[in-house]
């Protein structure tokens, strides 16, 4: 039953997906500083926080392309002008089902995970979901041949 999948999604918490550490930067920084942080960890986004550590926005590689590079803006532009300020967030005890619904309807690739104070504690990406789905049926996914159309027709090896 695909209600089994829905149950698995509903019963697993975001915390169980093992969110990545929250990569943060002061919201008063420049795009260049954000870029440096993202490149250092090879991450697709950085979370902008205010002086109290609360989440104020997210800057992603999509923002980099659209708002900076395509707009021929200087990398020294304020991060606050390039980041996405209004954003959806998750809590650690939210269900994976909720995460999946947000990703599906919102079209984003990253979601910040925040605590009750609004402080970022992690980041979930669509890759976490893919990994979770693969783990629900490991044999069906991991036991496939590398090339779907390559079938051995001869004996080989010993």
């Amino acid at each position: 039953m695909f209600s089994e999948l829905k149950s698995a999604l509903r019963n697993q918490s975001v915390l169980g997906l093992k969110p990545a550490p929250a990569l943060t930067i002061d919201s008063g920084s420049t795009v260049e500083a954000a870029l440096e942080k993202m490149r250092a960890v090879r991450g697709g986004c950085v979370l902008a926080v205010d002086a109290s550590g609360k989440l104020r926005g997210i800057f992603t590689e999509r923002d980099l392309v659209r708002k900076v590079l395509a707009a021929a803006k200087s990398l020294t532009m304020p991060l606050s002008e390039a980041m996405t300020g209004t954003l959806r967030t998750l809590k650690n005890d939210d269900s994976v089902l909720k995460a999946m619904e947000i990703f599906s309807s919102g079209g984003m690739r990253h979601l910040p995970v925040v605590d009750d104070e609004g402080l970022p504690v992690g980041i979930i990406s669509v890759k976490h979901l893919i990994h979770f789905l693969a783990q629900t049926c490991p044999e069906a996914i991991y036991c496939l041949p590398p090339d779907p159309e390559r079938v051995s027709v001869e004996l080989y090896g010993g």
Partner: protein
Amino acid sequence: MTICDACGAENIQGVDTCAECGSALAGNDLPQPSNSFEQHIMATRLKELALDPPLFVDGSDKLGHVVDILASKGKGCVLVRRGGHFAGIFGERDLLLKHAHRQDAWRDDPVEKHMIPGPVTLKGSATIAHALNKMDIGDYRHIPVLGKDGEPLGVLSIKAIIRHLSEWAGAA
């Protein structure tokens, strides 16, 4: 044990031919679905999904032009053609990690200089399970899906897979 489709004999799992009748057993030990989710992902072909239309550029096109295309189309990657044939892929992650920090030095570079040549692809006849395999193990976010002529029909994105499976699960 693997059961021979031709004669029904039991064979040791993993052998290439049936010990009883000699028929090829390659493929008989592929995983079988044990629930409807597995059935769905192992039976649904990629060509049945809503693929992103391929965004083609020529290898000689400049990265500055590629950026404009990515931004205007709101997509994460372009497919590069050389000599009229699919040759590589270039995406916004490449811009982030390798070029954006170079100020404007990269804008006039031809995309073929920086593309990923011969990227991982799947045929339209491959299944969602194959795509999940590639995306999870290979860490790919975009997989060009090829037609029978070996040229891209479209691009399967990780977001599209999530959207499809979310809609499928929600249909219960």
